[in-house]
């Protein structure tokens, strides 16, 4: 297997050649549609160059390399602002799920390759109006319908549903048993009859999330993933698959060096702000935090390389990095005073304080709200008791709404 550093150098070299066509500057000011089309072309080029399915088997056009190779590529790619965000969830969760659970392997191979090339996009339909954090509280109905199934209900927060071709969905197939036990998982055709995706805007005007309505949507039993009543387990497997994806110690915001540049440029009481103790404290504390998170990540990589299971401390990264980015972004904006008020809608959240600040609240919710992450750490790592849950063990249809 190609060693990691050589691979990283190859990746950097190839990525550099892609910058003029797909880099941040090429994307400025173009329409959403044009950007998606650009993204599809980028994915095709990536597949062509052998960086599409880095850690997948060769039958999918992959290279059979390790997860570390993939993470190395992703970290390099992330810095360049390529239009790859449309395909992240698609390849990160639904595709591994169908590879693991679906029996029609030829069909799966077709889907995987089309997804890697950016020709098809998958979405993941889990959250609902009544339950984001509380996944098992979902209400989407799946009823037996002849040999197949019929779906009715509504999903919410589904990323990229409006541009997706397929989806993985969890629905309630039996409301008479406790809430974790009555769920079943399916794959669906997003263009099928009765499926309506309505995109809506987030607070920074980004259009990623959707409400998706299901109105007597018919499925064959072949679209079922995993056993009837086994949907919660499949959903959990999905959420675990990408546990060790590339974290970002900068919390997907600007680097410390970028903050230092900001502070060097600003005057504070007649001196550069970077000479002020409060600013030095912010720099030092954030550096120390990020250095710790990087060390945790590097250690996890080394352990995985050595065939060991990394420690649970990897779960701290998003919680700590995104939360601290929020306050640092606020400070940077305040520090800039009049200049801090200006907003460039095309700015990238790693290179602009207002863009960073506006994107934080979504980051603190998506992929697990802070409070849920703290619960997970407390319960799974430290062995502390679950919160009181009045709905525990109660048949779903007897839980008061």
């Amino acid at each position, binding site marked *: 297997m190609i060693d990691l550093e050589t691979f990283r150098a190859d990746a950097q070299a190839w990525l550099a050649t892609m910058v003029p066509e797909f880099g941040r500057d090429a994307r400025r000011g173009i329409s959403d549609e044009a950007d998606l089309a650009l993204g599809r072309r980028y994915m095709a080029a990536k597949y062509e160059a052998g960086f599409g399915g880095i850690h997948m088997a060769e039958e999918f056009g992959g290279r059979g390399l390790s997860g570390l190779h993939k993470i190395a590529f992703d970290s390099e790619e992330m810095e360049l602002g390529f239009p790859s965000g449309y395909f992240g969830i698609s390849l990160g969760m639904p595709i591994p799920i169908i590879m693991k659970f679906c029996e029609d392997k030829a069909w799966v191979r077709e889907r995987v390759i089309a997804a890697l090339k950016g020709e098809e996009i998958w979405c993941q339909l889990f959250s609902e109006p009544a339950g984001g954090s509380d996944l098992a509280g979902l209400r989407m109905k799946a009823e037996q319908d002849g040999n197949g199934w019929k779906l009715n209900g509504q999903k919410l927060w589904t990323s990229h549903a409006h541009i997706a071709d397929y989806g993985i969905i969890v629905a309630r197939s039996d409301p008479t048993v406790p809430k974790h036990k009555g769920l079943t998982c399916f794959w669906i055709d997003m263009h099928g009859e009765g499926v309506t995706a309505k995109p809506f*805007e987030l607070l920074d*005007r980004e259009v990623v999330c959707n409400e998706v309505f299901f109105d007597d949507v018919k499925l064959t039993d072949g679209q079922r993933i995993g056993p009837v009543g086994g949907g919660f387990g499949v959903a959990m497997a999905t959420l675990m698959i990408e546990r060790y994806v590339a974290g970002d110690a900068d919390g997907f915001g600007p680097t410390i060096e970028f903050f230092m540049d900001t502070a060097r440029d600003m*005057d504070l009481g007649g001196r550069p702000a970077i000479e002020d103790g409060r600013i030095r404290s912010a720099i030092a504390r954030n550096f120390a935090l990020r250095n710790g998170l990087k060390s945790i990540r590097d250690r996890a990589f080394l352990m995985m390389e050595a065939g060991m299971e990394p420690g649970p401390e990897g779960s701290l990264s998003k919680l700590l990095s995104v939360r601290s980015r929020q306050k640092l972004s606020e400070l940077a904006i305040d520090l*800039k005073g009049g*200049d801090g*008020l*200006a907003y460039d809608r095309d700015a990238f959240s790693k290179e602009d304080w207002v863009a960073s600040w506006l994107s934080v*609240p979504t980051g603190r919710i998506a992929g697990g709200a802070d409070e849920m992450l703290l619960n997970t750490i407390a319960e799974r790592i430290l062995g502390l008791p679950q919160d009181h849950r*009045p709905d525990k063990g109660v048949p779903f249809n007897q839980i008061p709404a």
Partner: protein
Amino acid sequence: MTILYDEAQLSIASESRRVLDAQYDLERLLDLVDVTGQYDERIWQTAVEQGWTALSVPEQYGGLGLGLIEMGLIAVSLGAVTAGAPFLTGNDAFVQLLLAGIDEAAREAWLPRIAAGEAIGVAALGEGTSPLPPVPAVTFSNGKLSGAKAAVAGALQADAGIVWASSGGSPVLALVELDDTMRRTVDSFDNARLYAALAFDGAPAKVLLEGDAARAAARHALARMAVVSAHEQTGGAQQAMVIARDYALERKAFGQPIAAFQSIKHRIAEIYGLVELARANCIDAAASEGKADFVLKACAVRLTASEAYDTAARDAVQIHGGIGVTWQLGLHLHMRRARSLSAELGSPLFWEDLLVSELEGVGA
């Protein structure tokens, strides 16, 4: 002045809130976020009708001659509804500086129009990162202003400004009529604040005050803006807290209202603490006008009110989970306003430094 509101003051508080709540239009406010140069004219019309523009103008100039406490109470109500008309603070500072100045003709020309809502004024004190640079880079000579001022709230629509400038090594406060050539739109994340940078290229202006008198008046005007703005922040913080509380009581997860989880419950209680500290400092600062420690008290309330609004807005969004980050819910209006009010009058670092200087008896 006392830190107990009297009956008349309490009725200003409740009446202004009632009027503003009745006109609250979330869609309109959301529309204002993205476009420059527009503001909520209906709200401003209401402000004029209610006499809020006349509030701090002396009676001899057609105003009501009321004080900072009353002005603050209006600001609390405007803050609660993230009002899309940013003139209260700037107008008030314009009035204060005219009153402090030596130019009776200017007072007679402008104050009745301000009181009647026919004209809008701003105070343009800050430059770069400082809300009141010790030696301003904008210069005044031969009756003309040159140089640029940082983003001034309301300036996109104001008729006149009072500018902190340098004149031959000494500071001056100069009155200038604004025209469109002087305004440079700042496209912001909170465009209802009507930010414009002001760029003067020999604009004709009149000196109202110079030297130490100008410095004292500018300091006072800045402190007063901070106090009015702090009331607005406190109103916003309180409202964000109430929104978060109501949602936490209504929204269920795991079979119970999320307010029953201490991570939510205690966070709202902590916000309550910040809001009440801000409110207490508001009353104290407003009642301190005219006393030796007014600037000190203004610093204290500026810091607590900024912290309260930032925390309340940040946490209210977080407590809402996914729905909190949608455009349509509009909770981000509080988040944006918390940030814009914090950035536009100088960073917390400036106010911390000023507070300690005041305690040390040094001053800014």
